[in-house]
């Protein structure tokens, strides 16, 4: 059956409701029959009996009044009685008519009998009335009493008997009706019983069908859930039904699959975390060592910076002195430049004078030559003079040469001095510039000094940070070991679930345990983790011991 539970329940309830509807219909039909019968009894028989009773009562009352008339002599009383009699007679006759109208054929005959008897009685009554009321004396009274005791009584008895007949007849009808009602009740009861049995059977069948189908599925689900709750994720959920519980089993199957995957990945993740935290522990140990080295380096840098600051200070002093010296040099050089210019002027004057001397020497030379020519022409007589002239000429020539040389020298000296002056003049701004630059160097050195101090402060801060880092690295090492133990615990917890390769997993775990020499780290502050002799499972952290870092924390 591919019906869902909902459909089954709907089918069952529809069946039961339809059976109940049928029962209701049948019950209603029976009750209606009974009701109609009861109506008949109440409407006709009881009414007839009631009317008959009242009529009988009226007959009794009227006969009594008739007797009272005979017995009474008082006129008023008689009038009243006559009036009363006639009034009740009318009521009786109307009731008789009513009885006749609701009676069946047999009843009508009986009523006719009653009417005949009654009319006879009324004839007798009229005689009695005439005797007792109208005449009203002792004799008539006796006569009336005679009539009343004889015929009138006979007629009245006949009338009452007729009425009684009617009553008896209706009583018999009532009994019949009662018997019919009993029969109807019996048949209705039987019908209802049959339907009840059918409905009970149907209900039992349908409910058994539903219960069996649901309970088998639920049993499967229970088995699966029990297996999962015991951690067996290898349980294969057998699902053949397609109803809601079948879907539930499908979902359970998916859940188990997912759970298996999750547990698998959690296991591998825990393994990874364990190894990673081992690595992290080593790394943070290295980091701690590195931080210590950094701290030492920072100390060295700090001392170097202090030396540098001292050097910079010395540079500043030197630069200031250099600046003064440069300014002094600039002034001196300006002085020198002026001196050189004066020298150049002097030399130019000397050169002019020397030119004059050269000119004189040249002219002397010419004169000496002329003299020599004259002396030579004079022959032997001019010989001595010729010698003198030659000597004069030679002297003049030497003078001229010397003058020329001096001239050249002074010219070159002038040129050199001029160049020197110009160079000195060029040097002055350079030296002034140098002074300015040295001033800038001084300022820069001062700034450098401040900068070096700042760097020094920064290095001190760096040192603190590095030491904090070292502490953090050590904390991290212990934290990673804690993490490793947590990962092992996680693996233990997760190993509750059997995901199929349980044996492999546990084997790897046991191998790991063999390989790993599980350290028990006592954080006792000396930084060297002691290995405990009793290593059981995972990383055993001795956290009860007191170490230097515990003083930073408060114990609760």
């Amino acid at each position, binding site marked *: 059956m591919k019906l869902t539970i909902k459909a089954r329940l709907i089918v069952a309830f529809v069946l039961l409701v339809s059976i109940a509807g049928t029962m209701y219909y049948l019950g209603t039909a029976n009750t209606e029959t009974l009701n109609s019968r009861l109506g008949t009894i109440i409407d006709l028989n009881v009414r007839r009996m009631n009317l008959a009773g009242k009529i009988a009562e009226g007959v009794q009352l009227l006969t009594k009044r008739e007797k009272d008339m005979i017995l009474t002599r008082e006129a008023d009383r008689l009038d009243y009685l006559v009036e009363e009699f006639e009034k009740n007679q009318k009521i009786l006759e109307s009731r008789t008519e009513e009885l006749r109208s609701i009676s069946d054929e047999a009843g009508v005959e009986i009523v006719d009998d009653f009417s005949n008897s009654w009319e006879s009685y009324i004839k007798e009554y009229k005689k009695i009335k005439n005797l007792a009321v109208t005449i009203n004396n002792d004799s008539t009274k006796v006569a009336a009493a005679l009539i009343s005791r004889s015929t009138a009584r006979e007629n009245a008895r006949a009338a009452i008997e007729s009425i009684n007949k009617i009553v008896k007849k209706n009583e018999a009808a009532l009994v019949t009706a009662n018997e019919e009602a009993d029969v109807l009740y019996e048949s209705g009861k039987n019908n209802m019983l049959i339907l009840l049995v059918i409905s009970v059977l149907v209900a039992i069948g349908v409910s058994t069908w539903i219960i069996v189908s649901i309970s088998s599925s639920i049993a499967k689900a229970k088995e699966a859930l029990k297996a999962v709750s015991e951690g067996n994720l290898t349980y294969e959920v057998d699902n053949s039904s397609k109803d809601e519980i079948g879907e539930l089993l499908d979902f359970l199957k998916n859940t188990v699959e997912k759970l298996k995957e999750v547990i698998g990945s959690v296991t591998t993740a825990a393994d990874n975390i364990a190894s990673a935290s081992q690595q992290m522990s080593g790394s943070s140990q290295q980091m701690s060592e590195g931080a210590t080295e950094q701290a030492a380096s920072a100390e060295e840098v700090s001392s170097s910076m202090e030396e540098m600051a001292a050097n910079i200070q010395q540079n500043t002093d030197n630069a200031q002195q250099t600046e003064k010296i440069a300014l002094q040099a600039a002034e001196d050089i300006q002085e020198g430049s002026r001196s050189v210019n004066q020298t150049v002027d002097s030399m130019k004057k000397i050169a002019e004078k020397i030119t004059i001397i050269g000119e004189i020497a040249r002219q002397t030379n*010419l004169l000496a*030559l002329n003299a020599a*020519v*004259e002396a*030579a022409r004079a022959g032997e007589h001019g010989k001595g003079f010729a010698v003198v002239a030659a000597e004069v000429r030679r002297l003049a020539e030497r003078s001229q040469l010397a003058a020329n040389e001096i001239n050249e020298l002074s010219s070159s000296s002038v040129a050199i001095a001029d160049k020197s002056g110009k160079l000195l003049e060029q040097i002055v701004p350079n030296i002034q510039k140098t002074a300015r630059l040295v001033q800038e160097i001084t300022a820069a050195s001062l700034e450098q000094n401040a900068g070096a101090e700042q760097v020094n402060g920064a290095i001190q801060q760096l040192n603190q940070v590095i030491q904090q880092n070292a502490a953090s690295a050590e904390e991290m090492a212990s934290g990673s070991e804690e993490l490793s133990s947590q990962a092992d615990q996680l693996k233990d917890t997760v190993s509750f679930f059997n995901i199929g390769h349980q044996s492999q997993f546990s084997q790897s775990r046991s191998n790991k345990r063999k390989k790993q020499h599980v350290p028990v780290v006592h954080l006792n502050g000396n930084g060297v983790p002691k290995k405990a002799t009793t290593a059981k499972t995972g990383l055993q952290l001795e956290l009860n011991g007191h170490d230097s870092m515990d003083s930073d924390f408060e114990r609760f």
Partner: protein
Amino acid sequence: MSKVAEQTINSFLSFKLDRETFGVNVNKVIEILEVPHITKIPKSPAFMRGVINLRGTVLPVVDARLKFGLKEIADSVNTCIIVFNIQVAKEQVMVGALVDAVQEVFDMDESQLMPPPSIGGKFRTDFIRGMARNEDDFVMMLDVDKIFASEEIINLQQEVEAVKA
């Protein structure tokens, strides 16, 4: 003036033209002058620089460089005028020669003169009387009469006369 005088006087005045040293017998030299203002004479040959006033007389001045076919250069402080007394057609004439520099007066025997080279000289050799050694250099002894013994000088003389007139 006379041959006897010439022979007896063995003194020579040396001067320079370009890079060569020349010598002339002092007998032919009257005096040595610095270069005064030289009055140019129109239409005169190129080597005629003009005339100067020598103590009242008009003295024609010849540029010896141009006369010897050398390149003309500007006058320097050492440039001098040597006043020669030359004999032209048995007539004594004074001529100024512009030389680069006058050097000295020296004595030398005629016999010490070497003959001029026959070929390869820069100059015509007929007016070179001979070559004399003066230390490492040669001094060419000039016959002044032959240098200036040309019609040019006569013409010059005439021109000078004309100028005088």
